[in-house]
């Protein structure tokens, strides 16, 4: 599904991601761990195609196609989607209007989908304006439900969300990633950033990666990595060279 090779990324004049290699197969969900400021969000924004992140070396293949130079909407059209940790507030733009714009000619039942994540009363609200942490995340999930991407990046889906809503988020994300299907039948893939790991109680992940200082240092079983980090912190990761 997604294949990243020797990727170097600049923000302004400064290189912030160094020599990233990552492969996520069809039906797989990976988790990306790492301390604050290690470059996790930068990697997601780069994969999505945001213009502030300049790829200086390497390439991104999506479903076998080179998308390295494509703009965000072209990547979205090919099936890449992202749940933002802190999406912008857009004054005057109503959530309902945005959902209609995303759905285009698709035949989604927007009111039913909105009700399923308890966002039906937010259709006439300016997008993200005065939304609580949980409401922002539910609005993001709802947009993704309508967009229906094949590869979904989730930037800290549990941050700012209370316990009750984490379970709701987990269920909704699980369904976006076709977790109800047998593994061999699953076609959707995902990449989750998490700090706390809480969301992993709701979403099964297949593989974990640890990022430090703009480099992916190790790969492995997500639960084992998380357990390690909980016990020892990221200190050892920083000392560890990339595997």
């Amino acid at each position, binding site marked *: 599904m997604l294949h990243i090779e020797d990727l170097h990324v600049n923000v302004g004049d400064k290189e912030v991601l160094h020599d990233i290699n990552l492969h996520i197969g069809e039906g797989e969900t990976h988790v990306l761990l790492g301390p604050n400021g290690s470059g996790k969000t930068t990697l997601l924004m780069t994969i999505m195609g945001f213009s502030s992140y300049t790829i200086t070396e390497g390439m991104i293949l999506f479903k076998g196609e080179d998308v390295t130079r494509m703009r965000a909407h072209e990547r979205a059209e090919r099936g890449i989607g992202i749940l933002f940790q802190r999406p912008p507030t857009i004054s005057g*733009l109503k959530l309902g209007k945005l959902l209609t714009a995303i759905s285009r000619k698709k035949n989604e039942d927007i009111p039913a989908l909105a009700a399923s994540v308890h966002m039906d009363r937010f259709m006439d609200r300016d997008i993200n304006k005065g939304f609580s942490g949980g409401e922002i995340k539910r609005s993001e999930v709802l947009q993704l439900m309508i967009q229906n991407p094949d590869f979904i990046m989730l930037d800290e889906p549990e941050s700012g969300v209370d316990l009750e809503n984490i379970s709701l988020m987990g269920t909704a994300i699980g369904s976006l990633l076709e977790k109800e299907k047998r593994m061999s039948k699953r076609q959707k893939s995902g990449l989750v950033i998490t700090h706390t790991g809480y969301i992993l109680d709701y979403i099964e992940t297949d593989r974990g990666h640890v990022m430090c200082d703009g480099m992916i240092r190790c790969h492995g079983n997500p639960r084992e990595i998380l357990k390690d980090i909980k016990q020892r912190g990221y200190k050892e990761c920083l000392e560890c060279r990339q595997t």
Partner: protein
Amino acid sequence: MSPNVNLSELSAADKDRLVQSGIDLTMTNRCGSYLQMDQDIVHSECTSEGIEVLPYKKAFEKYSWMKEYEWKVVAEDKDEITKYVAAQKDPKGYVIIAHKGSSNIVPIQACLYLGREQIQHVHNIIIAEEGAELHIISGCTSGTHVGKGGAHYGVSEFYVKKNAKISFTMIHNWSENIEVFPRSASVVEENGVFLSNYVCMQPVKMVQMYPTATLKGDNSVARFSSIVIATAESHMDLGSRAILEGKGASAELITRAITKGGTIISRGHINGKTAGTRGHLECKGLILQDGRIYAIPEIEGSVVGTELSHEAAVGKLAKDEIEYLMSRGLDEDEATATIIRGFLDVKINGLPDALQHQIDASIDVAERSGF
């Protein structure tokens, strides 16, 4: 032309321009009409009970008390525009009277069409008697064939009596060679509500206006909303003023201004003269192409207990907002238009749906052409 030409008999080009200014030629969603082409009154009627739409002179022939409403809130000698209108031997314009207790949720339309004349002049008087509710949409436009340019001088005097309400929605659809000088003012009595909405999405050479609402009565309300785009050669000098005199009177002045190379001067003035009055002034500007947005908000309070505020901001489209929408599959142009549409989306409290839809529709036309 003689009065009451059937609206469907107008030429196709004229019809198109009128429809774009919010005029419903089929009259399906209107309860009355006044149409003036240059200085000819083409059509004047109203089917709503208790509400009259009359040509200016006819109203004065019919009611001797009309004199009490002439040049009472707009001064005859205010400037050369009012002097020009006052000097006319044959005054034109409309008088709309909503008699005591009458109401029209379906709006009356007034259309002023500038075809061949150098200067079109009108004097309008709008009265909502006690407890009456009156909604008016005024579409102002010019013929596609006005090559040499022209000007529109319009004086409007509004009287909102006790417990009455007037909404006046003006949609301008002029062309690059027309200059427009509305001169209007209103007086609002106890518990009265005056809503004034202005939409201009199309090119115009110059618009200059500064309508004033004097809120004399206790708990009276005025809301001014302006939604404008200035194209490269347009010069728009727009303002609105509310004078809060009655106890508990309140006013809200809202502007959304976009320049695509033209000039917008957005003035506003709220004067709180009595305790317990409230006022808020808000101007948001977006510069899409180098031009000028000059916001001059003024708030003036002179007693303890008046609460006035203003906020003004001029800026550009935010890249992170555009890219947010692009990550959902909208291309850059679609994302930009969607954000601009949101910026211009002002929901006007107390305005009937039909009129809100008309405002939305005229912005939609601009959106379809990519602003």
